[in-house]
C-alpha cells in the first residue's frame, strides 16, 4: 500500500494523507491514570523492579532529558537482562549512543522499539535488521499524541528525576544531576499504568515541580541517575566553519528580507552550530533595530538564555534544556517556562507552541525536489536521528527554513527522492545552502517578496544541477526490500518505511 507521497507502507497502518488531515479528526483521550493513594519509596531499584512484576511483552517507557549522561535506562536494562524478561516493547523518547540496549535486542528481550530519535550502536543494530519486531519513530508532538490516545499504551514509565520531595513530587531543576525541564515525560507521567521516579536527590520540600505526586506510584533512590555533564550534547556552540557561517548569514538576510524580524515575533532553531549562528545573526539584527521578540522555543541552549537576558525575547518555552546554562536559567528565571511535549507539538492540543512560531530553522540530511526532508537516515540508509520536533515545528511555524551545505565531503544534499521522508515538503518553505536558496514554489508570496533582493534565489532543480556539476552525479543506491521500521507523522499516520541497510 502506498501513502499520498507514494511511499510504500505496511498493509494495516493508516497512510499519511496530508499535513493538515488531522484537522478533520477529533482528539482521542484515554483517561489519565487513577491517582494512587500512597507513593512507595525504595532505596534500591532492583527491589522496586521485582515489586513491579514486569512481565514478558510489556511496554516500558523512559525520557531522554539526561541525554548522553543518562544512567536510568542502562540500570533498568541490566535488570531486564538479569530477570530474563522477554519480548519487551521499549519506548524511550530518544536513544543515545550511550544507551546499552543492543544485547537485549540481539537476544530478543526487546522485541519492539518506539522512539523519536536514535543514533549510535542501537541505531546500527536496528538498521542492520536485528530487531525482531518493529521500530516505530514518532515526532515529539506525535509521541504525546500517541500516549494520550492510547496508541502507545505504557505499562511502566521509569522516569529519571533529578530531585524528588517527601510527597513524591519531582523536579528537574534541582539536585546534583539537574537537567532542567522534563517536558518529554509529562505524557508518560499522566498516562502510564505505573510511574516510577528514579532519583539520586531526595529533599524535604520542593519550591516547584513538574511531576505531581498524584501520578507517582514509586520513588526509587539510587546512588546516581547519571552525569549532568552528559546533557551538554556537544552541539551547542556557534559554528566556526566558514561555510556554516555563510549559510547562517544568508539565512538571517533571507529572514530579514521576508520581514519576519519585528516586535513580537517568535522563533526556534536547533542546537546545531549553524542553527546557533543563525540565531546569533538574527540576534544582531534585533539588537541594531531595537526589536523584542515574543518568545523562542524548543530545546533551549545557553545562547537563547543570553538572548533572553539581553531582552531580545520576552519568554523562553522550553521542552528540553540542551546545556547547563539553560538548566540554571530555567531554575532561576520565571520567564524561562517549561512546557510538555504535548503543549509543544501535539497537533491535537488547542494551541500548541509550534503553531505560534513565526520562524523555525531546521537541518536536513537530504532534501528532494518536492522539498521533502530526511533527518532519519543518511544517504546510505543508516539511521542517524529522527524527527524529534522537526515535523512538528515545520508544520506549525509560518516560515520553515532548512539550512545545510549543498555537499559535505561530496555527499549531496538534494536528491530526486529522499531515502526516508521525515517531514513532508508541503511544510518546508525554503532551503538555504552556501550556493543558493530554493523557495518552495507553493510559496509564491515569498518569491514575490524576494524579487529584486541580492539573495541568490534558484529553483531547487537548478540547485541540484549545480550540485551535480560540482560534485558529480551519485549512483542511486537501491533500498533492500526488508522493512525494519516506520516513520509516523505527528497525526499518527505512516509517512515512510525504514529499510534494512544493504
Amino acid at each position, binding site marked *: 500500500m502506498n501513502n499520498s507521497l507514494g511511499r510504500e507502507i505496511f498493509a494495516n497502518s493508516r497512510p499519511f494523507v496530508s499535513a493538515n488531515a488531522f484537522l478533520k479528526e477529533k482528539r482521542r483521550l484515554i483517561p489519565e491514570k487513577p491517582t494512587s493513594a500512597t507513593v512507595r519509596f525504595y532505596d534500591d531499584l532492583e527491589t522496586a523492579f521485582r515489586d513491579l512484576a514486569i512481565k514478558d511483552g510489556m511496554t516500558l517507557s523512559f525520557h531522554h532529558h539526561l541525554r548522553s549522561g543518562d544512567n536510568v535506562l542502562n540500570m533498568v536494562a541490566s535488570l531486564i537482562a538479569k530477570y530474563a524478561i522477554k519480548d519487551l516493547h521499549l519506548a524511550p523518547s530518544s536513544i543515545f549512543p550511550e544507551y546499552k540496549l543492543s544485547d537485549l535486542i540481539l537476544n530478543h528481550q526487546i522485541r519492539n522499539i518506539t522512539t523519536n530519535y536514535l543514533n549510535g550502536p542501537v541505531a546500527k543494530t536496528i538498521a542492520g535488521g536485528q530487531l525482531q519486531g518493529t521500530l516505530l519513530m514518532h515526532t515529539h508532538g506525535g509521541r504525546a499524541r500517541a500516549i494520550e490516545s492510547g496508541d502507545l499504551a505504557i505499562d511502566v514509565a521509569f522516569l529519571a528525576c533529578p530531585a524528588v520531595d517527601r510527597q513524591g513530587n519531582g523536579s528537574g531543576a534541582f539536585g546534583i544531576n539537574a537537567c532542567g525541564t522534563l517536558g518529554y515525560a509529562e505524557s508518560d507521567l499522566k498516562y502510564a499504568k505505573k510511574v516510577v521516579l528514579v532519583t539520586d536527590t531526595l529533599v524535604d520540600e520542593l519550591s516547584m515541580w513538574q511531576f505531581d505526586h498524584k501520578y507517582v506510584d514509586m520513588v526509587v533512590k539510587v546512588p546516581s541517575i547519571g552525569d549532568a555533564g552528559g546533557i551538554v550534547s556537544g552541539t551547542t556552540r556557534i559554528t566556526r566553519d566558514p561555510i556554516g557561517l*555563510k549559510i547562517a548569514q544568508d539565512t538571517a538576510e533571507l529572514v530579514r528580507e521576508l520581514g519576519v524580524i519585528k516586535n513580537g515575533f517568535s522563533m526556534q532553531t536547533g542546537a546545531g552550530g549553524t542553527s546557533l549562528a543563525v540565531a546569533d545573526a538574527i540576534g544582531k539584527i534585533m539588537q541594531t533595530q531595537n526589536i523584542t521578540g515574543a518568545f523562542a522555543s524548543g530545546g533551549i541552549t545557553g545562547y537563547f538564555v543570553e538572548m533572553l537576558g539581553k531582552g531580545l525575547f520576552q519568554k523562553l518555552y522550553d521542552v528540553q534544556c540542551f546545556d547547563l546554562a539553560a538548566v540554571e536559567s530555567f531554575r532561576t528565571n520565571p520567564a524561562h517556562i517549561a512546557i510538555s511535549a504535548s503543549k509543544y507539538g501535539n497537533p491535537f492540543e488547542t494551541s500548541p507552541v509550534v503553531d505560534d512560531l513565526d520562524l523555525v530553522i531546521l537541518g536536513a540530511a537530504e532534501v528532494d525536489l518536492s522539498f521533502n526532508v530526511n533527518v532519519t537516515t543518511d544517504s546510505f540508509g543508516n539511521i542517524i536521528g529522527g524527527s524529534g520536533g522537526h515535523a512538528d515545528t515545520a508544520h506549525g511555524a509560518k516560515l520553515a527554513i532548512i539550512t545545510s551545505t549543498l555537499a559535505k565531503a561530496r555527499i549531496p544534499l538534494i536528491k530526486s527522492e529522499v531515502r526516508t521522508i521525515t517531514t513532508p515538503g508541503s511544510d518546508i518553505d525554503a532551503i538555504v545552502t552556501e550556493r543558493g536558496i530554493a523557495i518552495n514554489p507553493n510559496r509564491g508570496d515569498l518569491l514575490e517578496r524576494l524579487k529584486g533582493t541580492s539573495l541568490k534565489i534558484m529553483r531547487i532543480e537548478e540547485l541540484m544541477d549545480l550540485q551535480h556539476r560540482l560534485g558529480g552525479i551519485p549512483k542511486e543506491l537501491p533500498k533492500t526490500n526488508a522493512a525494519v521500521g516506520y516513520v509516523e507523522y505527528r497525526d499518527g499516520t505512516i509517512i515512510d518505511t525504514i529499510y534494512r541497510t544493504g
Partner: protein
Amino acid sequence: MRSFLFVPGNNPSMVQNADVFPADAVIFDLEDSVHVAEKDNARRLLRDYLTSHPSLPQKVAIRINAMDTPYYKADLEALVADEIDYIVLPKATVTTTQKLGSDLFALEQKRELNKHIDIIPIVELAASLVEVCKIAATSRVVAILFGAEDYCAEMEIKRTLAGEALFFPRSQIAVACRANGIIAIDTPFTDVADDEALLKDCHNGALLGMTAKAAIHPRQVGAINEAYSPAQDQIDWAKKVVKAEKEASSKGLGVFSLDGKMIDKPVIERARKTLAKAKQYNLAGQDDE
C-alpha cells in the same frame, strides 16, 4: 574592489568553496600557507581546480613565491592561464615587479592567452616603501597590497590596534596608489576571532585612503565590504548633491548651496565618485535619475 580573500592553495575544502563568499577577488596562496614540501602539490591542485571547477570566484589572483625562491618560476609556469586575473608578488621591488611583467608577457605570448594578467605587488620591505611610487607606476600594476607583518618585523616595531605604527606606510601607499589611479589594499587583520577589532582596523586603513583590504578568513569579508563601501548616509548625500548640481547647471550656476553649505567642483566630484562606487556594489538602490 574592496575585499581580497586569501585562500590556502593546498587545502581542497577551502579551494573548492572559495567562490561562495562575497569577496571581490580571491587570492589563492602558494607562499606562506603552503609548506615547502607541498609547493608542487598546491600548484597542481590549483591548476586543475581552475581549469575544471564549474564556478570560480569573480576575480582570481595567485600569490606566487618571491622571485628569490626556487619556486617562483615553477609557480608561473604552472598557473599562468586564462583563468587568472592577477599575480600577487611578495617582497616586490621596482626591479622584481618589472621582471615579473616581462616574464608574464613571455608566457602570455607563448601560450597565446586571450588576456593580459595584471600584477599586485606586495609592499612589505622598507626598501619597497621608499620606491612605492615607482612600483605603483610600473606597467601591469593595478593594485598594491600592504604587508604589515613583514614590514613591522623588519622595522622592529610593534603593530597595535590603534595603528600608529602603520600610519606612515599606509599613507605612503595610499598616496602612491591614488596618484597612479590604482587600488590600495590594506594589510590583513590577523586576529580572525575579533570582529570589533577588525572593524577598527578597517577604519584605520580607510581613514588614510586605503581603498580595499585583504582578508585571511572568509568571516572577515562581510565587515571589509561594509567598511570599504560608501555608507548609506553618504550615498543619500551624494544623490542629493548630484541632483542639485543638475538643477543648478540648468540654471547656468557653477557654484550653489545645499542645506546651507557651498557646493563647488571638488565636492561634486566626491559625490559622483561615491555614487559610482555605490552602483558598482549594488548599493545605490532604485535609480531615481
